[in-house]
């Protein structure tokens, strides 16, 4: 299944429908998810577990929108003709802020000492939703051992947000299955296909180990950290959603 249609030019035969996001009329192709349709229309819906090129999972819930008054995860919900979608409202921003905070507080996210700082999507969402009340939620402070067994790649699941992007990338793009979910509930985490990472067939060329796959600092490349000075890091210049929002200008 192809996702995130960059151009709708090849889909002439597909049924075109229209719907609205925050009052603005947008075009979509029947069968697209709300997020795909919004991306195409240049409307950015914030997200963490979703990444272009991977099947959507619908787990982080940050992309929650209201469709005809009902909350749904836009990355997995199909768009319908005439749907009235609410995206950037005070109520929904409040939910997203809570969800982003939950992820911050569930793990150990100490931005100043994290290699992913500046290119971390969770941090970027924190800025976007102004999650500055650091003491609102309790900190769960997990103490899981860091897996540094592999010569090139390190895994610190204390920073994992359970987005499963590494799992899908390894399974669907690399054809390997290096990662998988283990545990349940608050103890659910990313496990590896072996007693540790050195007992798996992961390597640096895997999409699962690509810098952009892990949205946080959970999968880390050894000997590669803090490579951009503050102010010139990826999200200092172009925070998530920049490319999608640019489409809007181009399409008009």
């Amino acid at each position, binding site marked *: 299944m192809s996702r995130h249609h960059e151009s709708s030019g090849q889909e002439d035969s597909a049924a075109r429908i229209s719907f609205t996001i925050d009052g603005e009329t947008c075009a979509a192709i029947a069968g697209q998810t709300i997020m795909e349709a919004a991306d195409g229309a240049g409307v950015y819906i914030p997200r963490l577990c979703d990444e272009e090129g991977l099947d959507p999972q619908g787990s982080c819930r940050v992309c929650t929108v209201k469709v005809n008054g009902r909350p749904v995860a836009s990355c997995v919900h199909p768009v319908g003709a005439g749907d009235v979608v609410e995206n950037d409202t005070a109520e929904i921003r409040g939910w997203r802020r*809570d969800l982003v905070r939950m992820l911050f507080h569930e793990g150990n996210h100490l931005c100043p000492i994290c290699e992913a700082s500046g290119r971390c999507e969770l941090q970027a969402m924190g800025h976007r939703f102004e999650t500055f009340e650091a003491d609102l939620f309790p900190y769960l402070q997990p103490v899981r051992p860091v897996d540094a067994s592999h010569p090139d790649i390190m895994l610190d699941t204390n920073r994992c947000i359970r987005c499963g992007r590494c799992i899908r990338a390894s399974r669907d793009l690399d054809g390997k299955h290096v990662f*998988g979910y283990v545990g349940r509930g*608050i103890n659910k985490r990313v496990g590896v296909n072996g007693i540790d990472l050195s007992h798996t067939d992961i390597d640096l060329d895997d999409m699962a180990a690509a810098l952009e796959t892990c949205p946080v600092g959970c999968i880390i490349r050894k000997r590669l950290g803090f490579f951009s000075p503050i102010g010139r890091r990826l999200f200092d210049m172009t925070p998530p959603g920049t490319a999608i929002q640019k489409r809007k200008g181009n399409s008009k």
Partner: protein
Amino acid sequence: MDTKSVVRAACAKYGSDRDRLIDILWEIQRASRHINDEGMEEVAAALGIHRVEVEGLVTFYSFFSSTPKGRITIRLCNDIIDRHAGADAVGQALVGALGIGFGETSGDGAFSLDHTSCIGLSDQAPAALINDVVVTNLTPAKARDLAELIKQGASPEELISVTGDGNNSHPLIHAMVSNNIRLRGAVLLHEEIPTEKGLAAALAMTPEQVAGEVTDAGLRGRGGAGFPTGRKLTLARGFPAERRYLVANADEGEPGTFKDRVLLTERADLLFEGMTIAAYAIGAAHGILYLRAEYAYLREYLEDVLKKRRDAGLLGGDILGSNRFSFDIRIQLGAGAYICGEESALISSCEGLRGEPKNRPPFPVEKGYMGFPTVVSNVESLCCIPRIMDMGSKWFGAFGTEESHGTKLLSVSGDCGKPGVYEVPFGLKIEELLQMAEALDPAIVQVGGPSGEMIGRGDFHRRIGFEDLSTGGAMMVFCARRNVLEIVDAFLEFFIDESCGYCTPCRVGSVFLRERIQRIMNGAGERSDMSYLEALGQTITATSRCGLGVSAPRPVIHSMRQFPLVYASLVKERKDGLQPGFDIQRGLDIARKIARRQSMIYDPRFGGKDE
């Protein structure tokens, strides 16, 4: 037997079918009492899958273990009804007699001790599972006796000296469980219910007519959600597919619910008959009874009923000589996960996956088990179908109210004289039920279990039915002595334990709800905690992926609404302006230990504030 042989035998038994991974892991768990690294590697190799997938299952289902369990595992139910009935004292007695704590296994590998969520015996609490064997109405003295027998080498089966009424005494069940049927209605628990008349009537009709009759009867899902059963059948039939499936949801895990236990024990034929009729209506050749692991003691009996039905031509090819309809049923045993009661999670579990809900749409009636149209229906709903076929939709619709036809089985437990199963017509008032159940001083009724609705005295005039109090059947009664927040805390603990962890709000948010409830219970709450809980609850309900997360904040929200004075008496602003959650003395203790000095300002001995 070494791990390799155990795994080989387990995989062979299920034809190395990856979809039967739960059954395979059950075989290994029973034989080796755990599934270790080597076992996971071997299973993965035998099935051509990855080790991490196997580990994903072993660590998801609470009846599987990656570390060795004892030959006998005692699982004491610790839901709030059992605790009120004395489960904690029973637990202490077990710890004392066995010499191990909860979560531990004895050094010689003889026994393990664990807690478990509701096992469907709240009407005879405290109760426990000893391997598959159920023990009920426990006291500390009884628990000590059981522990002694176990230490002397008794098998779990040998612990049963007296068996219960009805089929509980059937040699294939042989359980000390009582049915506790307190009120028999006309539809399901009536003494004389003819079997197979409904099936014969259905087979004389077209499948469409059968679905139509169920629709006309106004039958709605008895699990609590109340989706019209006839519409489900019609929808599933409407999607073109080469195969369709019919699944009976016997994963009755909502704390305080046990009516399906009684139906499975006393109305197994009616259930299988209902499954057969529903299968005929949708055009399914295969059915699955998803049986929760806690009811494993019923499995042999149910398999025997199935066998007898096959022998009688009621299952298998050419049912009742109809020459056009064949259908058979397999039993899928669960492995300890409440979330599998959610229909799409149940389907994942039947497919040998982690019991996580699927993204919807598409709904199971379109793409369910193995991607084929599937109807998942509650045991009680399926039991109603043969009755409707036999007696007609008008007869069925005459019971109950305008929008809620038929009768409802209620599982009554807690502070009442007559806990048990009541078959009542819809429309019954809560106060009428409480009177029947001889609840002398009821203050709270939890309608529908933790995921349902908590009501106080002011709401006892309300009625059971889809118009008002919709319920899967749990009626937990609490008297005025009980602590509301203790109940809320227990329910949150349950949701946290049973969350699958897939989505953020349910996985993390419910932990935060409990943290704040406990803070309030400990007297450290402040008024702003109420709005905090309200807002957090709204986020969790709005953004969760399935009903578990949507429901998790309900005990908090309902209790704040129903019992504001209880909360008001617990949350107080402090005079010194410090945050109530901050314990200055505890904070200073650390500094005192390090500095070996006292605080001139805060130490009471120096006239400091003792707060």
